[in-house]
């Protein structure tokens, strides 16, 4: 479901003297349906960069990234938009929402975007928020004022509300207590069981051991840097 081959990326900082930073070279990996693969490697090795290239907010300079049949390198915006609406889910580390929109709606939004009727979408959102132990009295409030752990769970609820065939998870269990961590691991296991292809970054080694089938070390994709430059 995710097929990456020969992917390379560099940043050109025009306003800092045109410095060119090669950050990735020859990245190759694939994730099959029903499988959870963890990206590992030291901080700065390029795990998040690779995730962002698959999500499409980082441009891919070289190679090929195919997600659920769509080639992302050089894709038109509307193809990426359609992919994100229908097939690709993403749990990021940070929640970015319009101020004032109630939590329940934030979570239900991916369903509404696919055209589900509002009562049914909100009902599903309620069930998932309850499962993630977000207190009912918070559902009608905007998540902007929530604690870090609560925001993270809202983010997870939004990511798991739909049965995406492909999912990207960026530190889904960070800043969660043991009980909520267990709920999230269950959600991931259920997604795998229904055939989702999952690629994630997990700093939490126990979580990684619990749900991941394989690890891919991105250090091998880090270009040799001339440190003296």
């Amino acid at each position, binding site marked *: 479901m995710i097929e990456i081959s020969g992917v390379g990326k560099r940043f050109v900082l025009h*306003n800092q003297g045109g410095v060119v930073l090669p950050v990735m070279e020859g990245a190759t990996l694939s994730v099959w349906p029903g499988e959870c693969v963890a990206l590992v490697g030291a901080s700065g090795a390029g795990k998040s960069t690779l995730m962002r290239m698959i999500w499409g907010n980082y441009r891919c300079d070289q190679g090929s990234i195919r997600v659920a049949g769509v080639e992302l390198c050089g894709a038109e915006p509307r193809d990426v938009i359609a992919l994100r609406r229908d097939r690709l889910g993403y749990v990021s580390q940070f929640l970015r929402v*319009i101020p004032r929109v109630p939590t329940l709606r934030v979570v239900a939004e991916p369903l509404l975007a696919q055209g589900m009727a509002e009562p049914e979408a909100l009902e599903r959102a309620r069930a998932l928020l309850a499962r993630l132990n977000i207190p009912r009295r918070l559902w009608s409030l905007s998540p902007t004022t929530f604690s870090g752990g609560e925001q993270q769970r809202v983010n997870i609820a939004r990511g798991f509300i739909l049965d995406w065939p492909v999912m990207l998870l960026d530190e889904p269990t960070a800043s969660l207590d043991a009980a909520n961590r267990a709920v999230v691991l269950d959600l991931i296991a259920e997604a795998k069981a229904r055939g989702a292809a999952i690629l994630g970054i997990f700093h939490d080694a126990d979580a990684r051991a619990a749900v991941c089938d394989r690890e891919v070390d991105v250090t091998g994709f880090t270009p040799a840097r001339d440190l003296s430059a």
Partner: protein
Amino acid sequence: MIPLLQVEGLSKFYGHHLGCADVNFTLWPGEVMGIVGESGSGKSTLLNCLAGHMAPDTGRVMFDTRDLGPRDTLAMSEPERRWLARTDWAFVHQNPRDGLRMNVSAGGNVGDRLMAVGARHYGDIRAQASDWLGRVEIDAGRIDERPRAFSGGMQQRLQIARNLVTGPRLVFMDEPTGGLDVSVQARLLDLLRGLVQRLGLSAVIVTHDLAVVRLLADRLMVMKDGHVVEEGLTDQVLDDPQHAYTQLLVSSVLQV
């Protein structure tokens, strides 16, 4: 699927001075495109050319009309274009006073546009006006007050109601949240996003506020000195800007 709007080689000069040069893009149904750039970059000129307020010097603006399919709006007769502006198109001005009739009641402002497309039944017009005031969160009890009595944020919401009441398919917005308090801005953004999603509208939004485009626009076009220097998916342009000017723009945003 047919694109809703297809723009080819659009340029506008003010004498020797360049307004915007060789702009090309395709807008699909349901897409929201943002245009950002500093003042003087040509973004408002472009918007006004697209909406038929200004005649460009070169180029074509193909719009997929309801009855006749794609047509070049620049080659249309003035009455045809005016009809389009009253039905399938809407234009939200930065200053609500430019888009509202200040001496007419709130209900009248909304009903006015309905009457322009042939509505005549007073009861129906008033009922629709009152429904739209509710949708933009204006108390229906204030339907007979003039916009002068409204706050800036309310005037802007009234302008949106007036524009959307005839069910347009394409909305042009020029700095729709400019000049409003941040709290009022947030409310308007939420409202706009809800309306765009629920009604399946396409929109072209000109703004200098990157936070606004991040929340509202699917796609983004960056303009500098009359030229489009970068375009693409909104989060790609903002998170991984390629052009020197876009990099400068993105890195200049103040964090709160």
